[in-house]
């Protein structure tokens, strides 16, 4: 957020939350005292496990003071305490944007990363001089890019991407720059602000801070209100609707609607305030990597608890600069592509938006979205109604993400190999199968090729039926090339080869990672194309 907007944003966020709490209390909701007590409880729980650094000590001091005052305060004094707590949260959350750092970063980062990588291979660097390597060639932008650029001038955009890696925000930021769009604001986990590689950039490139350890309702309200106000001030936003990095590697099918709902709130506020450009556009977007930096940690987490995964992972590959360097090196040396696929935009109600910014319903008829929020004389909020609209928008986002997913050679090869192995080990319980698949023997390459051909046909059928976008496999689907390309990726970055070829057979080297990369194609009913016995697993 630009310096000139910071203070007024904080004032607006704090004012709205305090007012809403006061009004809520008057209408039978939680009292101000209850909200404060709730905040104290959750914050004390958090602080018990937190180190004694400057920030936490400031919080301790604030809460000590509130705890002492709370039993003896009047309602108006409680409101003041609430204002103090909210202000503290808001000041922590609000992001800073320094245009000089942005200009520097967009010029230097791509080449810097390229140099960093080639420093590992000085011969390669010398042989290319004076041309400097760049990350630019690695990013492939597809889909409704022109529509996105057009809509960014017609209203405020919420980019809603899939989330696989902590590198996503960097790749997305860089892609938006390549498209000629201004930087988007987005919420980034506290761990990224503490990351030695990224800290400086996170603090200066408009990211706002999200501390997932803060569980107090008041803090979550601050986050939502901050996103809402920033949109009303015309800042394009980037939300990861899945909430956190997808642990399984699949395309998200369950979204967290909280931040998505902010778009609707901002839209209604814009209409109420007669803003010149009130429209909010939700643009789903899928990111696809041949290799995922944190794949090993994420799938471990997914399998460990199957549903009870850690929400915050602070000790993954991303926190190890050497590992990140190694990953980026592989990315460039493999000439790997990262595909960013922009879907057709949606309005806050889940209607499709045309390139000219107007909405249309499922039958292609024009609709006026402002009519959706009219109550009596004009536009207004209605909690129950708005929740339902947001759910509808969430469903539309999921449909887009799944429909416009992109599958790379690692996904295609892993899906095929995993399904062939699974069919052989059908008699084993799933976790046992993962542990013992090694003893199923290798899969003959000709079997893999034939299965890939069946998968290719099944994908074509899905495209014809409209279940997938027109080109889900962007770099061609020649089975032999898919095998060669997939093996190239699987044989390099990860500690153990995910899948290895010996002679004319493929052998699983890391079943968990094979499962992770395979998961990208799950949920489309493609398993039976590989082996009819897997029909029940779909």
């Amino acid at each position: 957020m630009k310096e000139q907007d910071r203070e007024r944003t904080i004032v607006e966020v704090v004012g709205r939350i305090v007012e809403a709490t006061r009004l809520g209390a008057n209408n039978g909701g939680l009292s101000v005292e209850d909200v404060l007590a709730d905040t104290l409880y959750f914050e004390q729980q958090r602080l018990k496990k937190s180190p004694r650094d400057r920030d936490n000590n400031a919080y301790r001091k604030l809460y000590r003071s509130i705890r002492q005052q709370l039993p003896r305060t009047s309602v108006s004094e409680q409101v003041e305490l609430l204002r103090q707590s909210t202000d503290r949260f808001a000041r922590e959350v609000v992001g800073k944007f320094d245009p000089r750092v942005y200009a520097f970063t967009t010029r230097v980062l791509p080449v810097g990363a390229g140099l960093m990588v080639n420093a590992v291979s000085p011969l390669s660097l010398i042989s290319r001089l004076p041309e400097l390597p760049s990350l630019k060639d690695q990013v492939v932008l597809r889909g409704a890019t022109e529509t996105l650029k057009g809509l960014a001038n017609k209203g405020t955009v919420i980019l809603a991407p899939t989330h696989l890696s902590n590198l996503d925000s960097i790749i997305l930021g860089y892609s938006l720059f390549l498209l000629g769009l201004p930087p988007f604001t987005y919420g980034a986990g506290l761990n990224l602000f503490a990351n030695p590689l990224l800290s400086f950039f996170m603090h200066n490139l408009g990211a706002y801070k999200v501390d997932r350890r803060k569980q107090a309702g008041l803090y979550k309200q601050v986050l939502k209100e901050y996103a809402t106000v920033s949109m009303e001030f015309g800042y394009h936003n980037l939300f990861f609707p899945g909430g956190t990095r997808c642990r399984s590697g699949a395309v998200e099918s369950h979204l967290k609607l909280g931040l998505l709902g902010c778009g609707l709130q901002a839209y209604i506020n814009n209409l109420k305030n007669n803003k010149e450009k009130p429209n909010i556009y939700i643009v789903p977007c899928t990111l696809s990597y041949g290799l995922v930096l944190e794949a090993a940690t994420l799938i471990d987490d997914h399998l460990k608890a199957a549903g009870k995964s850690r929400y915050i992972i602070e000790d993954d590959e991303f926190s190890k600069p050497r590992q990140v360097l190694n990953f980026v090196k592989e990315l460039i040396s493999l000439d790997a592509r990262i595909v960013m696929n922009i879907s057709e935009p949606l309005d806050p109600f889940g209607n499709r938006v045309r390139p000219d910014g107007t909405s249309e319903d499922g039958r292609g008829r024009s609709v006026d979205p402002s009519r959706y929020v009219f109550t009596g004389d004009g536009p207004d909020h209605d909690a129950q109604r708005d929740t339902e609209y947001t759910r509808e928008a969430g469903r539309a986002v999921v449909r887009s993400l799944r429909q416009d997913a992109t599958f790379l050679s690692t996904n295609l090869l892993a899906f095929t190999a995993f399904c062939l192995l699974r069919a052989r080990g059908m008699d084993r319980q799933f976790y046992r199968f993962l542990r013992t698949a090694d003893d199923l023997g290798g899969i003959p390459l000709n079997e893999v090729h034939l299965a890939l051909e069946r998968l290719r046909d099944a994908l074509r059928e899905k495209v014809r039926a409209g279940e997938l976008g027109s080109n889900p496999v962007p770099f061609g689907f020649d089975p032999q090339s898919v095998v060669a390309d997939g093996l190239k990726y699987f044989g390099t970055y990860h500690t153990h080869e995910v899948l290895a070829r010996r002679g004319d057979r493929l052998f699983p080297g890391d079943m968990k990672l094979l499962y992770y990369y395979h998961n990208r194609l799950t949920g489309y009913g493609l398993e039976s194309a590989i082996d009819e016995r897997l029909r029940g697993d779909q």
Partner: protein
Amino acid sequence: MSYPIIQLSERRLQPDYEGPVFVWDVDKTYLDTDFKSIWGLLRIPLEMAIDKTIIPGTAATLQECRRGPGEHPVHTPIFFVSASPPQLAGVIRRKMLLDGLQPDGFLFKDQLQLALQGRFRELKFQVEYKLTAHWSLIADLPPGARLVVVGDDWESDGHVFHLLDATQRGDLAGDDLAAALLDAGVTPSSVDPMVDLAARATGRAQVMLACVILTRGRDPSYFDPYRPVVHAAREALQAAALFAEHNLVSPGGVARVAWRLRADWGWTEQQVADSLADVTARSLVAEPLIHQIREALEHG
């Protein structure tokens, strides 16, 4: 004294296998290794896989060799013979992985052992190594396998392939072979072990085709004495066309090699046409096949 060789095999063929087996030389045939200059020699151990350069079009040709002549890939066995030390196996394997190749095995010259045994001449001399490597490999192959050997014009590959063909057919053995080996410059103390090794390999895995890729730029007529088994290809596209003539790759596969040469190596349409015209003029490839290749090129 036996020749120190490191043999790494990842695939055991069925005993009744009667199909082709490619045996490719690595240095100067697939990898563009510079053994001649001091800088080139210094570079070799320092190079990472990504730094290694290849002879234009050879990766695509090798992929087509693996794919075979039909619609579905047949995974034709491919083994590699390298005069590099086995310590470079990791880098070479990784380079092949990056190039999408699927080697089934390697034979490396154990240069450390040679040096320790004081056989310094043999560090640079390749005839002994190449023949020993091929016979060692043949001893492990099914008797019905048919060899397709691929080398270059920098060393004595043409002569090596000629001798190999003769011994495999049983035309050269015993004292005659010993004399031929001495003529070829083999160290006298190595001759007897080599004749013994050849005797074990004779009759197994006949040479079906030998191809020398002229990466040094010699005139093809230099290899005329070694015909009909040894053929000279000026570059990878001609090698691919030659393999297609022997039904080892498809006409579409040759077209794919041509596309890669154009896309990755800056070849022009005219260069492709000239190359194909040359193999026809030299009677390596018949006109009907060239017609099919041209059709595949036109129809993408």
